[in-house]
C-alpha cells in the first residue's frame, strides 16, 4: 500500500507553520483551513502538490507554492533597514537588559495587520518593529539575526502540508504535549523497535500497542501490503484511534483478510475455551433464514471467521517477532507470550521506564530461552545550524523510553544446566573429573559465552 505522493483529498495531513506550530487537518474537498492570524486557505488550492510542499499566502489569500518554509528567512540583506547595515555592535555590552525596549505596541501591530492584506504585512511589521526597537543597533549581528528570525517566524504567512507519516504523527503528539499518550516514545526509539523487531513485508507479528495505534502504523509502513499483525489488547476493543487517520484504516479486523487482527488477552491466553459460541448454518439452513435475519447472520459469520482465524494463528506458535508496547507489567506477561514465537524470532519490549524492564531481563538471563537480552536506549541530540554558531540545542524534549531486546532460542536442557553458575559447574566438573579432561573445556566455552553476554551468569563474584 503506497503512501500518497501528492496532497490528496480526504487524507489527514500535518500542517506546519514557520514558528514550528503544527496542526492535524483533514483535506476535505470544499474545506477551508483557518490558521488564525496566519490567514486561511482553501483545500482545493493545495491539492495535487507533492506532500511536503511549502506555501505562502499572498494578497487576497492567494496561495502560492514556495521553495521551503525557511527560504530567505534569515537572509539579512532582504531587509533594507538602516540599522541592519550601519548599526550592529561587535558585542552586546551596550545592550540594556530588561523588557520594553520595543516601542511598537501590541495594538499597533494588530492595527497594521488589519490594515494591510497579504504576506507583505509580515515584512512591513518587522521593519517597523526594528525601527521602533530602542536598542536594536546595540545588539550584535548575531542577536539581530536571532531577533529577526523569531519575528519572521511569528509573522510570515507560510505553511507546509506534510504526509501523515508515523514520524509526523509522533512529532505532532509531542508538540501537543501529549507524549504520555504514546508512552513517551521518541522517533529514535520507534526506529530502534522497527529494526530490532525486523519489521518488513510478509512478516507475521505479535503486537501489544498502547500508543493508540502509532506503533502498528509504523509497522504497516514497513510492511506495505504484505504480512499480518496480531494485535493483543486488554479491553473489549483495542485502542487504535491514530490508525483511523491513516490509509490503513480498513485493515483493522474488517475481514478475515485484514492485515491487523485483534485479540484480547483472555482469548490469547485461553484460545481453546474462547472459541466463539456460534455454529455456522449449512446452505439449507441459511436459505431458510428470513431475509431480514440474513444480514445479521452474515455479520456474525464474518466475526466468527475472523476470531477463529486469529485464534488459529495464536495456536500455531509461529509469530516471527514480538513488539510489546504496554504498561502491563512485562515481567509477568511477556513470559506467557514467548511460547507463541518461532525460533530465532526477535523480541522488543518497550517501556517508558528502564526500571520496569530489569526484572524481566534477569529472568531472561536466568532461564536462557532468550539470547542477547539487553536494554537499549538511544537519544538523538539536535543542533542549531546557523553557520558560525553551530551548537547543540540548549534544551530538548525528555528522552524517549527503553527497549529490552533479545532473540528466542531453544536451549537444550542439560547443556544449559552445566553452563549455569559456578556451583553447578563445579559439581559438574567434580562428577566428570575421572580422566575426561574435556569437561574443563566445556566450562571454558560456557564461561566465555557467559562472560560476554549474560551478566547474571558470568559467575561474577562480589568480593566484600
Amino acid at each position, binding site marked *: 500500500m503506497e503512501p500518497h505522493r501528492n496532497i490528496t483529498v480526504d487524507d489527514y495531513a500535518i500542517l506546519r507553520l514557520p514558528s514550528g506550530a503544527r496542526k492535524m487537518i483533514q483535506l476535505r474537498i470544499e474545506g477551508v483551513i483557518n490558521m488564525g492570524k496566519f490567514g486561511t486557505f482553501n483545500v482545493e488550492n493545495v491539492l495535487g502538490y*507533492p506532500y511536503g510542499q511549502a506555501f505562502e499566502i499572498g494578497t487576497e489569500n492567494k496561495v502560492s507554492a514556495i521553495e521551503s518554509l525557511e527560504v530567505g528567512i534569515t537572509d539579512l540583506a532582504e531587509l533594507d533597514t538602516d540599522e541592519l547595515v550601519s548599526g550592529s555592535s561587535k558585542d552586546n555590552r551596550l545592550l540594556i537588559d530588561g523588557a520594553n525596549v520595543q516601542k511598537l505596541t501590541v495594538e499597533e501591530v494588530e492595527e497594521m495587520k488589519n490594515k494591510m492584506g497579504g504576506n507583505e504585512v509580515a515584512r512591513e511589521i518587522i521593519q517597523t518593529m526594528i525601527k521602533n526597537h530602542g536598542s536594536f543597533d546595540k545588539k550584535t549581528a548575531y542577536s539581530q539575526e536571532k531577533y529577526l528570525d523569531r519575528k519572521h517566524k511569528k509573522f510570515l504567512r507560510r505553511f507546509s502540508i506534510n504526509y501523515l507519516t508515523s514520524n509526523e504523527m509522533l512529532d505532532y503528539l509531542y508538540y501537543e504535549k501529549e507524549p504520555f499518550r504514546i508512552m513517551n516514545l521518541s522517533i529514535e526509539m520507534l526506529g530502534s523497535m522497527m529494526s530490532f523487531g525486523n519489521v518488513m*513485508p510478509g512478516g507475521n507479528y505479535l503486537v501489544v500497542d498502547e500508543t493508540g495505534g502509532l506503533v502498528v502504523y509504523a509497522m504497516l509502513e514497513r510492511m506495505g501490503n504484505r504480512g499480518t499483525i496480531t494485535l493483543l489488547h486488554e479491553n473489549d476493543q483495542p485502542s487504535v484511534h491514530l490508525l483511523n487517520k491513516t490509509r490503513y484504516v480498513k485493515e483493522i479486523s474488517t475481514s478475515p483478510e485484514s492485515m491487523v487482527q485483534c485479540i484480547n488477552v483472555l482469548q490469547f491466553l485461553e484460545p481453546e475455551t474462547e472459541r466463539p459460541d456460534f455454529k455456522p448454518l449449512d446452505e439449507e439452513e441459511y436459505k431458510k433464514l428470513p431475509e431480514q435475519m440474513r444480514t445479521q447472520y452474515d455479520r456474525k459469520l464474518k466475526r466468527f471467521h475472523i476470531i477463529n482465524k486469529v485464534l488459529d494463528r495464536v495456536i500455531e506458535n509461529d509469530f516471527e517477532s514480538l513488539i510489546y508496547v504496554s504498561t502491563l507489567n512485562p515481567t509477568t506477561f511477556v513470559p506467557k507470550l514467548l511460547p507463541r514465537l518461532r525460533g530465532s524470532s526477535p523480541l522488543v519490549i518497550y517501556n517508558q521506564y528502564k526500571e520496569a524492564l530489569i526484572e524481566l531481563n534477569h529472568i531472561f538471563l536466568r532461564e536462557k530461552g532468550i539470547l542477547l537480552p539487553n*536494554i537499549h*536506549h538511544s537519544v538523538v541530540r539536535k543542533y542549531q545550524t546557523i553557520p558560525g554558531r553551530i551548537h547543540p540545542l540548549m534544551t530538548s524534549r525528555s528522552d524517549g523510553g*527503553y527497549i529490552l531486546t533479545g532473540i528466542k532460542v531453544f536451549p537444550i536442557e542439560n547443556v544449559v544446566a552445566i*553452563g549455569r553458575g559456578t556451583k553447578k559447574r563445579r559439581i559438574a566438573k567434580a562428577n566428570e573429573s575421572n580422566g575426561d579432561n574435556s569437561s574443563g573445556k566445556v566450562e571454558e566455552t560456557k564461561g566465555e559465552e557467559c562472560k560476554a*553476554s549474560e*551478566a547474571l551468569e558470568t559467575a561474577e563474584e562480589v568480593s566484600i
Partner: protein
Amino acid sequence: MPFIDRKKYIAEGDLVLVYVSRTIIKPIYVKKGENFNTRFGSFPHETMIGLEFGSQITTPKDRGFVYLLQPTPELWTMSLPHRTQIVYTPDSSYILQRLDVRVGSKVIEAGTGSGSFTHAFARTVNSEGRLFSFEFHESRYEQARDEFLMHGLGNTTITHRDVCTNGFDIENVTLDADAIFLDLPSPWEAIPHLKSVIANDRRVGICCFSPCFEQVVKTVESLQKEGWSDVELTETQGRLYESHKAMKREVDDAVKRLKFVKEKQREGLALIKTGKRQRKDDDEPLSKERDYGFNPFGKGKRIIEGDEEFEWFNVTRLEAEVKTHTSYLVFATKMPFADGKA
C-alpha cells in the same frame, strides 16, 4: 533469500548465523559434509538440517554448544569484525525511520563500506524497492559485491565508483531516488552530483554521516547552497545497559555485626583475664574480622551475584567502555520545484 524471506526450518544451502558467543557470530552456508569448527569442537552441518532456527546444538561429545540463528541485518552487523567501518543499529535504525525509508523506497548509499547498513536498507525497501550502493575502494567493492550476490540481495545494485568525482548516474537506469545516505570523507563533493538522480515528483531525504565536526560545517554549507531545505544536524547517542544485582546491605545488620564482634572481644578479654587465653596486645582488637560467626554481608567470602541468601537491588550498568560517538548526522530534504505541480 535470507534477510528478506524468513523461514522456520534450516535447509541445505541456507545462510545460518552461528552464535558462539556475543563477540563470535559466524555466517555459514549449510552444506552436507562440511563442518563448523571451533576451538571447542566441530559441528557437522548435517546435524543442522531440518532443525528450527534458534535451536542449540552441541558437539558430538557435548564439549561445546552454539545457537543457529536466522540472519537479520542487525545480527549481521553484530557478526562483523569490529575493526571494519560499521554503521551500528542505533544510527541505522534512526536514519531509516527519519528518512521514511519503507517498502518500495529507492535509496542511494555511498560508500558501501562493510555493507552492514546495505542489508538493513535492502530489508526495508524489500522486493518492491531499489537500492543503489556505491563503493570506491576496490577490494571492499569486490567483497561486498560477492557478499550481496551470495545473500541474494536482488534489489541491490553495487557500483565501483568514486561518486565525488564521477557522480551517481548509471547508464540506462533511472535511479529516481527518494532517500540518500552518504558515508564519505567529503560528502560536500558528492552532493552537487545528486541533482540528476533524485526523484523530481516527491520529497527526497538525505542523511550525511561524518565523524568530524569540520566535515559537518562543510556539509551543511553545501546542502544549503545546493537548495536542500530543513537542514538538521543531529547525533545519535545509543546506550546499552546490562542488568545486574547489587547487594542490599542494611545498617541494622552492620550494627548487629559490630555488637557481635564486640561481644566476642569481651569474651576473649574475659578469657585472658581468667588466664584461659594469652593476651597479645591490649590495643589490638582480638577479632579483626576473622570471626565470621555472624556475617550478614558475607564479608571475605566469594558471593555470586544474586545469591539467594542475600537481598539484592535490581540495577543496570552501562558497558565498561561506552560507544560515545559514531558520527554526526546531517539531514535535509528537497522538494520538486515549486512549479512542478503534478
